[in-house]
């Protein structure tokens, strides 16, 4: 197992290099760069622009610039944004906790919704409950967060206020001008988490249902039942553990989202997270920040795949890696 882990980690290095090189090159191929904001300003002269390009090394060929970037990153420094004039690591560090609050709560909520519904759906296949759950899944999956988000804002923030009901905050993480506090944060989490959880619960439900159904049709379940084991025990001891395998894999593979955040939902609810940082940086051609986020996300994806494999082996003793 140790050897296997070591091999996977070593294999990850060229993969990461390839990803970063590709993204770096593609970004440089865009017709605009971090100085675009200055290039479009009539108050910047050609000489000033040329001076800055040279000062920041933007005229160097792409391979030279990539190597510069790589050596900086290998020293543990994510580089420097030419747009905000501050270290990329600091920019990410400012946003990361906010995204973690949002995404971990949303993941937890999605699982709390999806697991029971998926189980009931599978155990009562083709019942009314199952059909209702299926309908819920399809609606949840078909309604994009940008729409459900706006709908939630209109109903719970705007209309509730008009009707004199306790309205929920629709933007940001804390009430402006107040000290904040845990309760305030929780109130601000309700709507964005609700929207994200709906969306994710919808497809997690399908996985739980499908996976449990698959297991329930296996011979060993029939054996367990025929030896007279109580149905409750059949489900909890034999079925659930085996059904958990693919579900755990899917969830593990989704873990990098805790870092990368939710682009659309964060934008709608003015949540100051990583998704919005990525979007804003893309709009201002802030390559350093984009590279930082993409590289870290790629690293996390690779690590989470590895983690999924490890968990798989731990849950299913039949699987052995060498």
């Amino acid at each position, binding site marked *: 197992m140790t050897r296997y882990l070591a091999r996977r980690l070593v294999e990850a290095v060229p993969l990461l290099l390839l990803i970063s090189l590709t993204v770096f090159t593609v970004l440089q191929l865009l*017709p*605009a760069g971090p*100085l*675009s*904001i*200055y*290039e*479009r*300003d*009539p*108050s*910047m*002269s*050609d000489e*000033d*622009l040329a*001076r*800055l390009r040279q000062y920041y090394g933007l005229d160097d060929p792409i391979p030279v610039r990539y190597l510069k970037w790589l050596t900086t990153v290998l020293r543990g420094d994510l580089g420097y944004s030419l*747009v*905000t*004039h*501050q270290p990329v690591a600091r*920019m990410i560090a*400012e*946003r990361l906790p906010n995204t973690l609050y949002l*995404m971990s709560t949303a*993941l937890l909520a999605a699982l709390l919704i999806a697991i029971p519904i998926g189980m009931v759906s599978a155990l009562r296949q083709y019942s009314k409950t199952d059909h209702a759950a299926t309908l819920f899944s399809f609606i949840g999956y078909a309604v*994009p*967060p940008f729409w459900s988000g706006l709908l939630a*804002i209109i109903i719970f*923030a*705007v209309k509730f*206020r008009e009707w004199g009901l306790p*309205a929920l*905050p*629709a*933007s*940001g993480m804390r009430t*402006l001008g107040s000290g904040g506090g845990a309760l305030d944060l929780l109130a601000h989490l309700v709507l964005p988490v609700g929207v994200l959880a709906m*969306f994710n619960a919808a497809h997690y439900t399908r996985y739980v249902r499908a996976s449990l159904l698959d297991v329930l049709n296996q011979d060993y379940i029939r054996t367990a039942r025929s030896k007279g084991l109580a149905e409750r025990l059949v489900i909890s001891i034999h079925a659930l553990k085996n059904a958990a395998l693919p579900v755990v894999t899917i969830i593990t593979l*989704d873990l990098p989202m805790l870092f990368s*955040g*939710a*682009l*659309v*939902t*964060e*934008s*709608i609810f*003015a*949540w*100051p*997270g990583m998704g*919005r*940082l*990525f*979007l*804003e940086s893309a*709009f*201002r051609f802030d390559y350093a920040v984009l590279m930082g986020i993409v590289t870290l996300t790629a690293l996390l994806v690779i690590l989470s795949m590895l983690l999924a494999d490890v968990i798989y082996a731990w849950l299913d003793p039949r699987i052995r890696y060498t």
Partner: protein
Amino acid sequence: MNSIKHLPLLGALLGLLVACGGTAPAAQPSGATTSSWASSAASLTPKRGGTAKVAIWQEPAMLNPLLNTQTITQIVGETVLEGLLQAQPDGTYAPNLATELPTKENGGISSDGLSITYKLKSGVTWSDGKPFTSKDVAFTYKVITNNANPVIDRAKYADVESVTTPNDTTVVVKFKKLFAGYRENFNWILPEHALGGDTTIDKKDFNRAPIGTGPFKFVDWKSGDTITVTRNENYRDKSKPYLDGLIFKVMPSREAAIQAYKVGDVDVLWNLTEGDLPELDKISDSAVEAVSSTRVERLVLNTSCPSGPQQGDPKCPHPVLGDPRVREAIELAIDKKALVDKLLFGKAAVATSVIPYGWYAPQLQPAEYSPEKAKKLLDEAGWKPGADGIRQKNSVRAHLTYSTTTGDRLREQTQQVIQEMLKNVGIEVEIKNQPSPVLLGSWAEGAPRAKGNYDILMYTTNADLDPQAHLYNYFAGDQVPTEQTKSGRNYHRIVDPELDKALNDAAATLDESARKAAYKVVAERISAGRGHIVLYNRLLIDPHKKYVVGPKVNIWDNLTWDAQNWWLNK
């Protein structure tokens, strides 16, 4: 949850945001109107205390306006940082950190006009209590001229020979040659002590957490969320600011900002568009002042070849627009009044010149609207209607592309109306819009505007309170963009020696009346050349709740220019 799942949406959002980011360089607020509630509230005695919350739908990249061109950087930055002079709502300059405007009479301007002496207010301190002196002005000049700093607007200092400080309250700026726009200089003064005397400020934390002489003092910046400034206890006017502080709330979009304003999460909104007016009118406790701004929406007509080896060369005339009579017919065919009435709720002004306001603004007559005259003119010029009603001359069809930035509803509506109006006189236009960064990008980016690869463009731009730099850059004959003059902005590519002469005359004197006369000639030549056909003045809309008393619109400065006078009446 997974950002990849949302990628298709990114395209749509991109379009939206690009439209918001827009072309307009500086959205500048205005003092042309004051509504009745404001004048009645003005008689009340201002109350101290409270915090005003301002929604901004763009996050500044930093808070040092010397290094960043974003309007939003200025809006937040100018609550903290100040300059020697400040533009007033009526289009004049007033002293800010200086005690008076330098003139020949008070000895502030030398007889040859090459030396400007500023007297500084004494007893002014930075928000940390350290004294503000002439040394800080000299230090700021060194920062500006330091090649390692990405300073914008450096061209304004190109003719400065030296900045000297005979004593703590006197600054003498010597010029190598006459610079009529000197009053636009030194609009942001930096503290020497807070930057440790180091003039390389590119990577300083100061850019994010500035220290200034202004009414407010920087407190904190929660990335993507809020920027908070609080009352500067060391401000020179002890009775001000009235507010305890300001919170700038970063919203992801204008729509979200309006929602937050509607439900009362914020008190002040920044930079809305004409299309938002009907929705704003529904908010009962909101004071909306829609003021005609300096930003003039215009058609820019390419008079040079739009393609081929001589693309963008003024010597190669455009097959259709190269004929001045066609350009005149286009202006005659457009009913500007109808555009304003139908699309801008009658609230904007029909534009008459590219420089509508300011001390130099000439009074020009609105262009005539007469489709009949337009048709007659085209007939005379040899453009005869073909079978489908579209005119032709020597088998060239009067077919033009008409481009503007994508995602701007007002512009798209304007396009459709103008398309109809031009069709009426036999000119066919094909709408071909592109995102703002693509259409209006730089020479290096190969943007159609810079390269001359277009027929008609529509966008907004504006001149500053000193119009010389803008007018020269956009209209002088040597500013046609080429490999040598990449940053030239004579995109319509008309070379007019008379216009060039008037521009040079305006720059050759500090005498305001002589400069005003020269700018009248400039404006008339631009109107006659019709490289730019002005349509309407865009509205400036910065609404605030009625209980926020004091904000006065200043089209020459930004929303927060007078934040020290704001107070809460609740």
